[in-house]
């Protein structure tokens, strides 16, 4: 912009600080620039009114740690099931590796979760109440119960691996005795652990997550399955990893189906963020990697190298699913369009259906 002969003496224009409230786009609600702006937007004004394009709902203040936790929690849950299977079917290597994998994922995931708190030192407050209406609370209790079982099982496993060198004293027989039941107990909470995170996301006003509430859990458990299967394929010899491969393939199939179903049932506007931007890219790659990993598993799963590669692809796919869904949701909260349009549509639909008594806007 050069407008004055004195331009050269002007101070450099400092970059305007980033808006705390996202994009500057103006909605048409101000009557087509009735807010005084004559600024022509780069794209045509969207067909909805908003307050200077500011978000209506706030995005969750969740960073990558929480996305990582979603992924790791799934891995931990799926691995616990594999471990139990190994335990029950006598696949010692699978049991051991799955247990270790599970506890590692659990530990990392828990740490990520705590790190994302505004006040990490208060993480124990999570156990202050038991709130059925709060998926986060339920998840915490599930996590705790799962952790107790899996922790016990892994302790026994580690003791065994170290040649009974853990200073357990008289507790060793007890530990050995509860190891089996502990593995079962952990497995009971494995499914909920993988699934509750879907409720955690859906039970929000974040448009994309909320709109996905019917089917997101299926996507997540499938993703958990393929990831835990993938992990076992990486860690465990092909001989013992058969169930892991099958779980992985089932997971891939489940995820592909569940995702399509989910998107079909979602409000089309609220589903958009799943296909746009960073989230769209991640989810597209997630799907590609899942298919590739699944095919690899099916076709070359008995080959150690291919199995390991397929396993890695599946792990990556699962991580991308969670990061993608996370990102899509956050994006949907920031752009008011995803809040306002579906709401207006459903309100209009209800009115058209003759339901006129449940609007928040009234005249009497």
């Amino acid at each position, binding site marked *: 912009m050069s407008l004055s002969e004195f331009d050269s003496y002007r101070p450099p224009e400092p970059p305007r600080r980033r808006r705390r409230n996202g994009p500057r786009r103006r909605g048409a609600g101000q009557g087509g620039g009735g807010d005084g702006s004559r600024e022509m937007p780069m794209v045509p004004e969207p067909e909805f009114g908003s307050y200077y394009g500011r978000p209506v709902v706030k995005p969750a203040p969740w960073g990558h740690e929480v996305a990582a936790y979603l992924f790791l929690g799934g891995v931990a849950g799926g691995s616990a099931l594999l471990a139990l299977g190994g335990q029950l079917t006598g696949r010692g290597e699978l049991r051991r590796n799955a247990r270790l994998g599970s506890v590692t994922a659990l530990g990392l995931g828990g740490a990520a979760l705590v790190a994302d708190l505004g006040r990490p030192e208060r993480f124990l407050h999570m156990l202050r109440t038991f709130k*059925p209406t709060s998926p986060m609370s339920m998840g915490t209790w599930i996590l705790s119960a799962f952790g107790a079982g899996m922790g016990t099982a892994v302790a026994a496993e580690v003791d065994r691996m170290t040649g009974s060198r853990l200073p357990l004293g008289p507790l060793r027989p007890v530990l050995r005795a509860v190891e089996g039941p502990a593995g079962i107990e952990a497995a009971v909470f494995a499914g909920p652990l993988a699934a509750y995170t879907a409720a955690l996301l859906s039970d929000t006003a974040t448009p994309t997550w909320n709109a996905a509430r019917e089917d997101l859990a299926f996507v997540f458990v499938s993703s958990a399955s393929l990831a835990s299967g993938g992990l076992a394929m990486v860690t465990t010899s092909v001989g013992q990893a058969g169930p892991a491969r099958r779980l992985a393939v089932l997971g891939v199939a489940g995820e592909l189906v569940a995702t399509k179903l989910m998107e079909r049932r979602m409000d089309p506007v609220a589903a958009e963020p799943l296909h746009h931007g960073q989230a769209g890219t991640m989810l597209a790659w997630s799907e590609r990697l899942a298919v590739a990993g699944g095919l690899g598993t099916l076709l070359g799963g008995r080959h150690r190298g291919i199995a390991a590669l397929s396993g890695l692809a599946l792990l990556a796919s699962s991580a991308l699913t969670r990061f993608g869904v996370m990102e899509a949701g956050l994006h949907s909260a920031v752009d008011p369009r995803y809040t306002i349009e579906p709401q207006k549509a459903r309100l209009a639909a209800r009115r058209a259906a003759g339901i006129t008594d449940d609007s928040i806007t009234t005249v009497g």
Partner: protein
Amino acid sequence: MSRFSPLEWPVLRQIRSGDLLGRGPAVTSERTRATSPRTTTADRVVQSVCPYCAVGCGQRVYVKDEKVVQIEGDPDSPISRGRLCPKGAASEQLVNAPGRQTEVLYRAPRATEWQRLDLDTAVGMVADRVLEARRNGWQDADEQGRPLRRTMGFASLGGATLDNEENYLIKKLFTAAGAIQIENQARI
């Protein structure tokens, strides 16, 4: 959650109170239960008047440990009925402003920075300068010999946020000193 007592664990209180969803009294903290406004814990309340515009809204000033902890509208005032505009509502910050200057500063001729000066010295220096300027600018009479008995050596410009009593002393002292260039915001 300062002292954790197992019996006060909210989960148990949830069960005891029937508030199974943990929404109400079961989950309150000790501090919450002891909530009280700082207007009630203040040592004293003083009636005042908003210093910004000339509507003259009533204010209540709450003082705790000799510090102003709250200033809000005085509902008793027939003028403002407890209401305040944004400036009036910010009065507490005017008093306790983070950037408020509470020390005397002095800038010497040609100096590039302030320096500290104690109040007593400063007032003394000002008194000396007033007397000198008064002397230098003194006019006994005009060209026609009519008495003037005044000084043009110094002037003052006051804001209109000064009290009547303050204006009175300023006018009284300066007039006695022969100064006439005394003005205030009313003209601006």
